[in-house]
């Protein structure tokens, strides 16, 4: 079992730093997700922890041991690749046990471990097959079995579900989570899918341009996004952003919209201050006329999502969307009023993009 400590990590290609002075602590047993758009450095970070990528500067420790200059095989990590990276010419059984055989373990010890892992992942009927004769989901399970059988100190997953269809992705996501509950091995999981991150993580490390934008539990990240970028990245449908000015009485005004903000959450706001409001579509709903904090708009489009629908409205020439279960009552062209509670409104500095919570 192992915690992971990364201190002042720098990674440059030539003169161009992709990661510049990153610090990160991952406690033992935790399931951490590196989340971010492509090119944010999350995969590079993972590959540096695995030892597949050299570190330009800084230190990586796993379980208190400095592994910065150790070869990948000596770090006690196991990795599942996006492409599965199975050995195409070996049977499933040989694929899974390759690492143990390289360690020189006796056959008598490998056999029961293979049986156990294969049973756990439902691979027992396929042990003699070649990877090309398996479906994508089965191949991914083989890749997971190959990682699990080594009983590593750390599991690394590099976008392992990206090549699977939506239904299978959901199923394997649950399996990976269950596997972690059972084994409790420290795990780092890289993805660009925010929904995947929200559902699977103990903690999310949200990265942008080679730096950590915010680190926290899925709830923290969803409810108290530290910046415009985080707020925009997390949550479906995406948050609405409105430029507004603070008026006396802790009210933010933008054209016809006037929303009173929570004095507890944003004690530092002053009249005349420019802010960027963040309104989650899911926090808002249809209201009757006269309700407080309401926004009046005209329906442009209704998107049916099954149990709920996203209603896109036009307010003062810009689009604001909200989600409601009563979407079947409205149709394009209707005038609607929708509202949200003051404590559900986010406010950001329009210049720096940082959250104004507590400021």
């Amino acid at each position, binding site marked *: 079992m192992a915690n992971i400590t990364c201190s002042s990590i720098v990674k440059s290609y030539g003169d161009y730093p992709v990661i510049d002075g990153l610090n990160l602590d991952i406690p033992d047993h935790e399931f951490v997700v590196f989340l971010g758009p492509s090119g944010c450095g999350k995969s590079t970070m993972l590959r540096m922890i695995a030892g597949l990528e050299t570190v330009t500067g800084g230190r990586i420790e796993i379980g208190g041991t400095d592994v910065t200059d150790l070869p990948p095989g000596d770090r006690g990590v196991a990795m599942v690749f996006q492409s599965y990276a199975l050995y*195409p010419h070996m049977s499933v059984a040989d694929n899974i046990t*390759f690492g143990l055989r390289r360690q020189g373990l006796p056959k008598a010890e490998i056999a029961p471990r293979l049986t156990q892992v294969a049973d756990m992942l439902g691979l027992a009927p396929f042990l003699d097959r070649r990877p090309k004769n398996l479906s994508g989901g089965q191949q991914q399970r083989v890749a997971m079995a190959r990682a699990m059988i080594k009983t590593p100190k750390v599991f690394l997953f590099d976008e392992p579900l990206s090549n699977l269809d939506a239904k299978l992705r959901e199923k394997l996501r649950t399996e990976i989570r269950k596997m972690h509950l059972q084994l409790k091995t420290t795990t780092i999981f890289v993805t660009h899918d925010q929904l995947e991150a929200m559902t699977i993580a103990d903690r999310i490390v949200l990265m942008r341009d080679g730096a950590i934008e915010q680190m926290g539990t899925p709830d923290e990240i969803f409810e108290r996004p530290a910046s415009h970028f985080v707020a925009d990245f997390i949550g479906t449908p995406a948050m609405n952003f409105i430029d507004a000015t603070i008026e006396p009485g802790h009210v933010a005004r933008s054209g016809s919209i006037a929303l009173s903000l929570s004095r507890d959450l944003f004690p530092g706001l002053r009249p005349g201050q420019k802010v960027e409001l963040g309104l989650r579509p899911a926090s808002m709903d249809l209201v009757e006329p006269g309700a407080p904090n309401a926004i009046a708009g005209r329906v442009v489009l209704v998107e049916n999502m099954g149990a709920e629908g996203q209603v896109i409205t036009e307010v003062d020439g810009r689009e604001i969307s909200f989600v409601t279960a009563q979407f079947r009552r409205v149709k394009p062209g209707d005038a609607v009023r929708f509202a949200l509670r003051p404590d559900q409104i986010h406010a950001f500095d329009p210049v720096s993009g940082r959250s104004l919570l507590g400021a």
Partner: protein
Amino acid sequence: MTRNTFVRLTLVPAIALLATLALVSIGGAIWFALSNRTLRSPDYDFVGAYNFLRLLRDSRFFNALEISALWEVITVSGTLGLAVLLSVLIYETVQKPLWRNLICFAFLVPVLLPRVAAAFIWRFMYSPSLGVINYLCGLLGIGPVEFLADPSLALMSVAVVDIWQWGLFFTVIVLKLMETLPRDPIEAAMLDNARRWEIHAYVTLPMLKGPLISLALVKAVESLRSFDLIFVMTGGGPGKATETLDLYAYQMGINMGGRISYASAMSLLLLLVTTIAFTIIWKAGKKWAA
């Protein structure tokens, strides 16, 4: 015009030409092999299977058969062994693309050399009195070594030239094949505690099994056509130490005896043996590569 007629129409000229060339010469060879023609006299009789029956009692024929088989095994395994070894070495030690390309370019030069030219150059290098190789041997306190005149060394010495020409060329091919392999399984093997040589022995080379078998077959066919190299370097000697079947057939039919019918019978047997051998190897190779 449908696709099939188009394919047939475009194939017909080439196949017709090939078939004519092959069938006429095979037909001629069979015609000759059944008679007792010599280059010395225009008279001949039909002798049936006499030439073939005599071949089976000809110990020089069996020696040539053995030398041919040995030549195949040595040059094919030597070429592929050298190519695999060198390409792994370059793959592991030379990372800069510029250097790799320069090495590849240098490795392509020997095979561009006409084989007769290579044979003359190496014969000179092997020379006991003037050759650079014996000069180097002398520095080490060995020699002079009679590379081409010593019956136990001659075949090997000629094979070295063939392996030098083709092994370096195949090194370039294998290296380029290795560069096309996906990185992920190699990285997975690194995480699986595999050492450098284990990664190649268990992951990269097995992934290249199909292409390597194809290369072996290409080289096996190519090695059958080594007449020019052996003829220039040793002429089949010393004695019959480097006399392959094609050399023996040439000696019998054209050079010494002029016994054209006997040589034709030998060529037909060579055709039969190689056809059978290659069919078996091809089938086995396909099975193994699957």
